[in-house]
């Protein structure tokens, strides 16, 4: 059981849904990332995904790619990211989940990665380039540490395979809403609600939907069928403005945007 399980148990007891923003660690710098995390929690986020910058993110669209490139250009290191979370932990009432490429976790040593992340107060990890078939070893390590390993299901995943993936996921199950990379979309696929509803009936695990979500109407449509919603590029784009505009103002705008989406969750 990680802090993620506790959050979903509480939300479910109250009949509520989770809002989960995504931010890139170190864009424009780690000090601002820390401020953003605290602000997101204050404005109603229930969990937060923290993107570990990676040089070759094939599942990411231009906005998140560019944020990773900027963070890496400033030489953000994994150890500094863990340090920052560890430092802010007392001010952060919500669980943090790292979104991290397997290239990074493997280079670091999967067991060390999990141990150090946990020591910093991080509750789990999403590894977008580690399909369930390849994740047995990491899943074993995570189980031993009560650290969540969140698996993903995509629109292209056959249903029988989706059930297998659901059985190996912990914390929650990440439903990728579109066939494609991350990035804001005007409209979400027609069959998305049906697919999430179907999966909802197959597993006890909370299901969170992400990729493409950016508007209050997306949130209103999905809230009835999902346990949580994930918003990435729309937030990363706003946070990135802190490189060129007054930081207090950017922080407030990010907060206002999150509060609007949280409001739409009902």
């Amino acid at each position, binding site marked *: 059981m990680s802090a993620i399980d506790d959050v979903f148990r509480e939300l479910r007891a109250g009949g509520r849904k989770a809002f989960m923003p995504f931010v890139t660690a170190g864009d424009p710098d780690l000090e601002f990332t820390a401020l953003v995390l605290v602000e997101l929690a204050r404005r109603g986020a229930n969990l937060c995904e923290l993107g570990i910058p990676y040089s070759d993110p*094939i599942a990411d669209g231009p906005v998140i790619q560019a944020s990773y490139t900027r963070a890496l250009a400033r030489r953000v290191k994994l150890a500094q990211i863990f340090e920052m979370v560890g430092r802010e932990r007392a001010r952060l009432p919500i669980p943090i989940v790292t979104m991290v490429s397997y290239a990074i976790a493997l280079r670091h040593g999967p067991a060390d990665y999990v141990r150090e992340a946990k020591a910093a107060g991080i509750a789990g990890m999403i590894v*977008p380039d580690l399909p369930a078939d390849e994740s047995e070893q990491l899943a074993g390590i995570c189980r031993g540490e009560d650290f969540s390993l969140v698996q993903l299901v*995509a629109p292209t995943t056959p249903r029988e395979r989706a059930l297998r993936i659901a059985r190996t996921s912990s914390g929650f199950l990440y439903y990728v809403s579109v066939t494609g990379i991350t990035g804001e979309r005007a409209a979400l696929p027609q069959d998305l609600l049906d697919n999430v509803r179907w999966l909802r009936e197959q597993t006890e695990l909370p299901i969170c939907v992400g990729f493409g979500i950016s508007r209050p109407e997306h949130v209103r449509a999905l809230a009835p069928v999902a346990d949580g919603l994930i918003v990435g590029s729309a937030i990363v784009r706003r946070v990135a403005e802190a490189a060129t505009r007054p930081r207090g103002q950017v922080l407030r705008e990010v907060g206002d945007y999150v509060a609007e989406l949280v409001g739409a969750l009902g």
Partner: protein
Amino acid sequence: MSSTTSHSSATTDVPDAAGRFGAFGGRYVPETLMRALDELVVAYDEAKKDERFAAELDELLRNYVGRPSPLYYAKRLSEQCGGAEIYLKREDLNHTGAHKINNTLGQALLTLRMGKRRVIAETGAGQHGVATATACARFGLTCVVYMGEEDIRRQKLNVFNMRILGAEVRPVTSGSRTLRDAINEAMRDWMASVETTHYILGSVVGPHPFPLIVRDFQSVIGRETVLQCRRQLGRLPNLVVACVGGGSNSAGMFYPFIEHEKVELLGVEAGGRSSQPGDHASPLSFGAPGVLHGSFSYVMQDEDGQTSDVHSISAGLDYPGVGPEHSFWKDSGRVRYTFARDDEALSAFDALARSEGILPALESAHAVAKAIEAARGRPRDEAIVVCLSGRGDKDAYEVARLRGEAIA
């Protein structure tokens, strides 16, 4: 590692069902792509069992590509070296001028079998892009090629040719603007288009089953060479040399020789300017096992797992990773890997031009450089085969620029 005891572990019966060559390979890609990879495994398995598939590919290789490519005795070059005899496997004489067409025709036939009509590809030197555009023109498939901006600059001729062949060339401006970023961008396209599009990967890299499929389609190089050596030399060669970018011409050349344990195999990576990080593209010589582009293999990474920038004079070798089967061969000791520096490749480019009247691709010139070196140190009754993976026309502008000469 003792090479005599470990040779036996370099089996040809790889990869396993999970795409593993020993510890290497696998599939490290987003879930979105997994179904397409599974479908590709099935389509390829069925194609392998279908005699008509083999016959159709065979006919194309013979009458469209011009196979078998000759095994040519480079007499003057050998005499100048004063040692072992050097033979060239002339992949440069293939239609489109390199080995890449062997793979793209095979994968284009697979595309048709899977009922897909759109193809995407990445390219470095532009040879794989041209070979893909050619196969797509031949079969009436829509073709989009991703190419780094830096490579578009150094391989102008191929860019123009791809467009004439009806392909759309999309410049890639992210990261190092070379082959690695072109693969990223092709993968991102595939994430969104996977239901209607086949990704024709150009080397033995990427997630399973690409390293298997590309090796198999390229193995025609080594199979022909084994036969030609028996016929022309009356025996197998002592040494076989090939350049290693992603590793497809070398894998195709080496694979049929793996079981012939007496034949030495030498892979030549791009040694660039120096052995300093960032100055070369030699992951097998200087890198460590890690994940890049969906596969676990030797790679140039920093201590955090970020892919390092690499350098080579040759766009086709300018890649921080390498196919997983090469990592397997390296660790088993069956293949030895070394590197040739930029200046060595340029000297070999000149040497082959002057001695034999053959302009090699800069990629292939890396293999020629190490073959010349080996020939000098070996007796006259030994034979060395070099995979001349491509011709050098595409490199004329870049070589001229490096020499400070202006052409067109």
